[in-house]
């Protein structure tokens, strides 16, 4: 019997690139900053994730999708651990991830250094459709825990904004 080629951490990271946010299926758990670590010990794979929002129902789906993805690749001994600290911030969304959000029609979050939205001042959020800066917040809460609802006064389209956290 041939022994299987040794599994590398990079191989697992590549596989996990296929696990997307179920609510925003263009961005991977790594690009989102939810995937915190991958470790291997005695042939067992430990994947560490952290929630975006504490109540986000997508977390359970992401956890199941990670296990499924690795099982499909023949990696059966998988444990997904969840940590709360350090707590997730939108700064962990990669630049490539932010570009994908924008292309998907979601205004990406600004940097937390520019945390005006949380402090009461509204940030300038350019419309992801037409780029206009003449936009207005319709609701501080949106279709998922991580988003707020905005409207563009130029192209008149509504859009989601990924809240800065």
């Amino acid at each position: 019997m041939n022994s299987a080629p040794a599994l590398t951490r990079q191989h697992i990271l590549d596989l996990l690139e296929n696990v997307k946010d179920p609510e925003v299926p263009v961005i991977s758990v790594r690009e989102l900053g939810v995937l915190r670590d991958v470790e291997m010990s005695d042939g067992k794979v430990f994947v560490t994730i952290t929630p975006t929002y504490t109540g986000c129902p997508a977390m359970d789906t992401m956890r199941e999708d990670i296990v499924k993805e690795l099982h499909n690749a023949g990696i059966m001994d998988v444990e997904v651990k969840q940590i709360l600290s350090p707590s997730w911030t939108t700064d962990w969304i990669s630049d490539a991830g932010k570009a994908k959000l924008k292309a998907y029609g979601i205004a990406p979050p600004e940097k937390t250094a520019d945390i005006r939205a949380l402090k009461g001042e509204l940030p300038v959020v350019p419309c992801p459709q037409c780029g206009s800066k003449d936009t207005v917040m319709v609701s501080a809460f949106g279709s998922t825990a991580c988003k707020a609802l905005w409207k563009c006064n130029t192209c008149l389209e509504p859009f989601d904004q990924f809240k800065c956290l």
Partner: protein
Amino acid sequence: MKMTQQEALFQYCLRRGDDNLILSHRLSEWCGHGPQLEEDIALTNRALDLIGQARNYLQYAGEVEGKGRSEDDLAYMRKERDFVNVKLVELHNGDYAYTMARNFLYDAWHLPLQQALMKSADTQLAAIAGKAVKEVTYQLKTSADWMIRFGDGTEESHQRAQTALHALWTYTGELFTTDEVEAVLQKAGIVPDMAPIKAAFDAKVDAVLAEATLKRPADGFMMSGGRQGKHSEHMGFLLAEMQYLQRAYPGATW
């Protein structure tokens, strides 16, 4: 017999978990009934944040207790007398001003409490707080905005907000009362002294109500009993609905 630190920590996690769980359930009742779509979404989003925090606390409570009870066991299989939330969160929803005034009073207490818990000697409580504090900041901003909008709005919105504050004020005292649970944990640096939290609550409430042109009700008789499992007449109905599925079909999953 003196309470051990483990018993106190279990009770403390239940208190934090139950406050969030019961308020979350009340807010979820607004789903499909909000005065406008955006507000409907806002309240259910807030309910989701609170249930996430409740999950963290009840999971940890189960762990600390060490008897193998899960977050679901604690949420769905306990009796009314075993719930230790404050009465404020179990009250009916009232009108929109009443719901928002309750959210505001809760948030004005919850934010400084969570900020202080970030420095807890218990790393799990500190981690839960570090996560929650971001969400609660956002929630307090929203509920404070609504108090100002109601108070400084029309005659009717002002009057409804003021009526709500008067009705709810007697339930705020319980947020700050402490007993042996806090005493044991405070000695170990696990939970904060409530005096600075009360001061932060007072300052926030005064500032927002002043801007809203609303009057702060006078402190008088304050309700109590929730922390000891003695609840109002609203609680049984709430639990009947919240626990129905797990009571009728124990262990049901989807």
